[in-house]
């Protein structure tokens, strides 16, 4: 092959390479946004009276995620005195159809997650009832034992502790943290 031909091929190769690399598809500016992949919109606490089997709930719901509009539902936890409740926590993404239950993912990866309950001013004792595969507490299921009538708050937090879970609240970052007003009445 002649030298000039070789060189011409080089030029053509460079130019094609350049244009070829530009071919990736770009969405249009009018594309509607996708729903956030990992959104938690709703935290639902379901209390079952261990004696009467009566069920009550407390819900926090912010359907458009952080920012934007204010939460659409933010309940006060109302419990009876001197009662033991079995409490189940449900985490939902209500922007998806059907509603996506994120608590299942938390259960599957229990070794990376921990629910932390912090009460202020209420006569209440909370004990985590479930464990992850490493026998460390998880918190999707817990027992809440109430005492005398009182007012205060309970903070429900979900910690994401991949690789650093040791059963304590300190490590990791917070995926959920809601300060529910709480009344024992």
């Amino acid at each position, binding site marked *: 092959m002649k030298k000039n031909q070789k060189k011409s091929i080089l030029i053509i190769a460079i130019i094609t390479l350049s244009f070829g690399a530009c071919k990736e598809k770009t969405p249009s500016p009018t594309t509607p946004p996708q729903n956030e992949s*990992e959104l938690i919109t709703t935290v639902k606490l379901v209390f079952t009276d261990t004696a009467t089997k009566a069920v009550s709930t407390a819900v926090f719901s912010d359907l458009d995620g*952080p920012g934007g509009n204010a*939460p659409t539902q933010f309940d006060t936890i109302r419990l009876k005195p001197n009662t033991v409740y079995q409490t189940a926590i449900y985490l939902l993404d209500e922007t998806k159809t059907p509603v996506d239950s994120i608590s299942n993912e938390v259960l599957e990866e229990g070794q990376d997650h921990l629910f932390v309950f912090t009460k202020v001013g209420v006569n209440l004792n909370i004990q985590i009832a479930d464990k992850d595969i490493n026998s460390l507490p998880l918190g999707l299921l817990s027992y809440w034992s109430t005492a005398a009538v009182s007012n205060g708050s309970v903070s429900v937090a979900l910690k994401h502790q991949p690789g650093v879970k040791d059963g304590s609240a300190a490590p990791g970052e*917070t995926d959920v943290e809601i300060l529910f007003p709480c009344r024992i009445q």
Partner: protein
Amino acid sequence: MKSIVITLQLLFAFSLFSQKSDCHFTLKGTVIDSADNKPLSLTNIELIGIKGKSISTDKLGQFIFANLCSDSLELHISHLQCEHIHLRFKLTKDTSIVIYLQHSNHAIGKVTFTAKAEQDNLDKLNLRKLDMQKGGSIAELMQGIGGITLLKTGGTISKPMVNGLHSNRVIVLNNGIRQEGQNWGMEHAPEIDAFLATEIELLKGPEALRYAADGVGGVLMVKPASVFTENAQQLKGEFNLIGATNGRGGTSSLILGSQLFKLHPIYWRVQGTLKRSGNLKTPDYFLANTGTSEANYSAALGYQNERLKFEIFYSAFQTKIGIYKGAHVGNINDLLKAFQSDTPMYKADFTYAIDRSYQQVNHQLLKTNAEWQLNSSSSVQLTLAYQKNHRQEYDVLRTSNAFKGPDFDYYINTLTGDMAFIKSNLHKVKWTAGLNAIHQANSYTGRFFIPGFYNKGAAAYFIAERTWAKWQLETGFRYDYKHITAYLWRGNNLHVRNLQFNNATYAIQLHYQKSKALEYIFSSASAWRPPAPNELYSNGLHQGLASIEIGDSALKPERSYHNAFQLKYNTKKIKIEAEVYQKYILGFINLVPSMPPQLTIRGAFPVYEYVQQNVRMSGLNMAMKLDLKKFYYVKLSSNLLVASELNTHAPLSQMPPFSGKLTVGKSTKKYMFQLWGQGVAKQYRYLQGSDYVAPPKGYVLWGCDLSTEFKIKLQPFRFNLSINNLLSSKYRSYLNRFRYFADEPGFGLTARLIMPLNCNLNNNKK
């Protein structure tokens, strides 16, 4: 590369030899560097209109053309492919000329008054200075320029801050094209391969108006080497090999270019860079997930004859940047906990692996540029460029079996065109008139932060300069029209917003050469900037900062008025450059805390809103070099900035604190060694309660550099070593957004081997 430009002093020494018949005249000459009166070799001398009459000066700066006819001659004189000069005269006898070429400080063929050789320049970095910074990001390269500090996000992301302003307010020109990425983000670094730069300059005069109206903070120009090599029969290039201890990083970069065909003036150049670095280390611990990787390449082709210069350039930049794991906080309590903790939450060892969260950015540029020399004094330039920027941001996932893609996916494609007519009347008057046009489409998938939009704009500009004996005046005027159509989704409803802006920009610069050593420069400029999409429409959680940012769709453009006085004093022993400036920005778009905190599923977050204020920024940038006996020297530089809101006098946040740097060194022909100490004060000017924690305390860092040149057989090498944070001091920087979470990197040694390549292609097998 130093730009050699025009000439003030052109000495024609016509000498009379014996008369000869029509086509037997000789033209000989010498080209002299006016900076040091030494002959300039490798200067290209071209006789326009006469085929094959192009030669280079020899070691003595001399050239000779024989057998010329009696005619009007047009000479084109260029050195290192930078700006060139044209000379016209009628040849009627054997002639000898002396041409003084002068080094310039400026980008667009500007006349300068004094000799400025390898001088410490406040607003410009040349190849030699860049050598000592190689291996860093493009922003790290820029910080040697007076007034430039780095705005960092951890140890892996840095972007330039010009006199306290950054992001939307600072324009970066890459190879003459305005860099168009998601520039608004404080954690979005410029997507430019640092090895493409052979010169970086902060444009201060009216020439900046050619490129942009909205450089409220400044316009930074990154110039690559020219594709047009001087010697046709040489393969020219450079190979760089760099290793750094902190992060155990390695970089290699190769650039190669030559003339493609022996008989046609077609030139080529290819270039590529590979970079990899792992977890950085503070004096006490490794920073989890702070690895980076980068792979870039570029190719250029150029054609040049007497009248036409044509270039096509393509570059691709790809990077993956790890984001420090300890900075990922879920809510404000996590953030407060991170402040109180002295040790990181996530212990890490060294690794090159990059985990979520990270950024992945791909930037491509295709540029064509044509320049016609219409006659000796006028030319037309046409530039077309297409840029494609794709940024992906991957956050930490809540569960590992969830979705694996990016949380944010931004696309911004930009087509720009520029047409300019340049007229230069030898050395007295020069003017440029031109038109700009832009079409830009922005889109995203994933979480909403800024909306999709189309941005269309057009501008006309006029820049002129006039030179008198000791004075030089430059003026520029530009008028812009901009139309933005933004597409906002509210639930399932699409809202279309149309925004229109049009406004004027001007700049004036006056130089006065008081004496051979002393020069004064006064400049006055005004710029305006329309509000950016994030300032208008953002409404959401800023994960890294645990805050909610709310835009305001009613924001108006901001306008700046900048006045500066610059003094340059330059003798053999002492060189001083000092600049005082004052800038007023009316309607400065600022993110300020607003009450009350907003409740989310992750707890309450503080809310920040974009508001407009009138602000004043005053500052002083200074650099000085003192040459002592026996090749010793002392350098001193400092930056001072005071920025306040005009009514309340409240200090603006995130402004660089006072800093100063002292360097002592020795530079001989064989080696250079220097030791430096840099002091950065605490930022005392800060509004109580405007930040989660008070600004970190001041610190002093030490470092040293060593550089030398040597030869193995015939191959020359440049070798240099730099040590940063010599004493491995523990400190945090106010301009690092991750100052809340971790210390800055400790001791780091970087070694660089630079191998200039010069191969002769003389395979004359004919």
